[in-house]
């Protein structure tokens, strides 16, 4: 499975590469796709904290993502009815704060409930948030959405003028189809850099906390909540912390999206966005950070790949239902044939110092030296 997943990601990157040199895919768009992959990695990492580590079924991913995006957009967008023109860094903090507050509001009534009740309730509360954003026009601009959002580095020294300052380049790998690198390309470079920093920081933070005593309690809660209670742990408190942490990471993805897309609308709160992230996590393997990253690639392949199919003349299907069908079938097939996901967590669940003494293979894995996969396996 490991090999197939790596092959899939490589094939996808190869397709992007081939598209690039043949001119079928603009370099700016390719970078945009990579930025989106990064965004889905963030979202999956966030959901992984809640579902993968702690076993919380959160069906309000889109609400946290949307609040992150709206939080920064309301402060920075040109047509924001409230503020507008403020620094994106301020927007970042407001977006994350809004998500943390919503997480507590949703968490207080629902985290004590049975798992399937949390699923239903969180989906319902996410719809309430969507309805509020859609209908409270004097604060959110309603269905028109917010436009004129600046890039994240607006107002920063050097980086804000970086795209203008870079020279235009013309590369001709294959004669007749030159690649032209101009201002939008450098803007996209900045965006990819930004999401890379976000993902890297999140990833390192999560790896740290997951292996901390705090993370071990979360895993115990997922495995056997009564046991965690019996050990004297305040499971409700731990669940709440995990819920807020995951939600803030989702909002971080939303902040990135707002400054990538430069436009946000109530459509960003649609439940389908929640299920894209769920696909990424359950397909990759719940609790597995590598899986979360793999899932990010697959979701982009579904979302953007269907767009390409539509460009082919003999495909007459609408892309909307095609995506829906792909998402639905993928959910069913994964649950039927590989409910643990293609890259289930292995070493991530093992205390790192234990690995120094013995190499413990995960389920379905053959024995191999642990140095081969970079040591930490996550």
């Amino acid at each position, binding site marked *: 499975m490991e090999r197939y997943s790596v092959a899939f990601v490589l094939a996808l990157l190869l397709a992007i590469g081939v598209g690039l040199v043949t001119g079928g895919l603009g370099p700016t768009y390719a970078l945009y796709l990579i930025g989106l992959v990064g965004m889905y990695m963030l979202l999956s990492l966030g959901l992984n904290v809640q579902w993968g580590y702690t076993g919380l*079924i959160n069906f309000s991913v889109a609400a946290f993502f949307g609040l992150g995006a709206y939080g920064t957009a309301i402060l920075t967008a040109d047509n924001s009815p409230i503020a507008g023109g403020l620094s994106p860094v301020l927007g970042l903090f407001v977006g994350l704060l809004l998500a943390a507050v919503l997480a507590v509001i949703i968490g207080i*009534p*629902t985290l004590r*409930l*049975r*798992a*399937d*009740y949390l*699923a*239903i*309730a969180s*989906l*319902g*509360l996410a*719809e*309430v948030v969507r*309805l*509020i954003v*859609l*209908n409270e026009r004097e604060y959110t601009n309603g269905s028109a959405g917010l436009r004129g959002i600046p890039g994240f580095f607006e107002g920063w020294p050097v980086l804000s003028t970086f795209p203008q300052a870079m020279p235009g380049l013309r590369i001709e790998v294959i004669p007749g189809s030159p690649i032209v690198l101009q201002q939008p390309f450098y803007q996209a470079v900045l965006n990819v850099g930004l999401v890379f920093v976000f993902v890297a920081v999140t990833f390192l933070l999560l790896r740290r906390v997951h292996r901390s005593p705090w993370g071990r309690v979360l895993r115990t809660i997922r495995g056997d909540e009564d046991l965690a209670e019996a050990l004297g742990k305040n499971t409700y408190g731990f669940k709440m912390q995990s819920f807020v942490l995951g939600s803030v990471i989702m909002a971080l993805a939303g902040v990135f999206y707002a400054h990538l897309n430069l436009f946000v609308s109530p459509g960003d709160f649609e*439940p389908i966005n929640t*299920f894209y992230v*769920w696909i990424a996590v*359950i397909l990759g393997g719940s609790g597995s950070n590598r899986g979360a990253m793999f899932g990010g690639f697959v979701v982009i392949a579904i979302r953007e790949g269907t767009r390409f199919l539509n460009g082919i003349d003999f495909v007459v*299907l*609408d892309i*909307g*239902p*095609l995506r*829906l*069908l792909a*998402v*639905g*079938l*993928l*959910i*069913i097939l994964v*649950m*039927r044939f590989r*409910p643990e996901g293609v890259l289930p967590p292995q070493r991530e669940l093992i205390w790192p110092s234990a690995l120094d003494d013995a190499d413990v293979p995960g389920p379905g894995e053959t024995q191999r030296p642990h140095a081969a996969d970079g040591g930490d396996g996550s």
Partner: protein
Amino acid sequence: MSVLEYMANGLVFSSIIVLASIGLSLVYSIADFANFAHGDTMTVGAYSALVTFGFVGGLGARFLGLPLGFFVALAVGVAVAALVAVITEKVIYEPLEVDSIGMLITSIGVAFVYRALIQFRFGSDFVEFGIQVLRPIDALIPFGIRVTLHDVAIVASAAVLVAGLHTLLQYTDLGRKMRATADNPSLARVSGIRVDRITLWTWVIGAGLAGAGGVFLGLYNQISPRMGFNILLVVFAAVILGGIGSVYGAMLGGFLIGMINQLTPILTDIGIPIGIEYANAIAFVIMVAVLLVRPNGIAGGQGAGT
């Protein structure tokens, strides 16, 4: 509009929600998972009836302002919804080896597949049955109530179906076995009840009622691929309010949630600035509040007493 008229609308909408909630509650108690494909099963019923009505539309005399062909279409909608659910159970749910959360997630995939296939065939626009819109019943207008014969037909049909289900559950062998299985599947199994067969019948009845609800929802509003998913959470609210697993609780919860939904405009009338656009949001908030104070719902009991 008068309070009486809101209540009349509430009764019509409640009838639809009740039909949907019963099925959701039945499947929740016997198959033991929250079926997120239930709303889209309603959509399947609505579109099947739409197609059938295209063939038999002009058929026969009129009854309650509806051509007899509509009732044929209704029957087909019920049958197709039940058939689709049984096939789904056999092909997808039965072979699964996951817990109830896994089933829940799978049912979301099933919902998407239903909806995608409907969208491929019918597009994503709103459509209607194309039955002539009736004038409100003259006799009721002096009371400030504007309802059409179609609304009466919806309430009457729902009442017949609910009464039929009540008879089935209380007075037939199948009904008794269903109640026993819902109460305690393992005990039912050792008592010699063939639980697999009961489960299949539960799908037939639950999805059939959902199909009927979908057809009426299409008659009441319009038909679109998202209609079922849009109403699903309202139905969950009704089921949770009534108490998951209890059929009579689902009826009561469906009635209350449908009423509350249609009475929302009164809030604006008395000066609370919460408009009709928040009707669904109110249902969800009630749902969460119920979960918080009384997780077993009004009808109480631990997954009990159908």
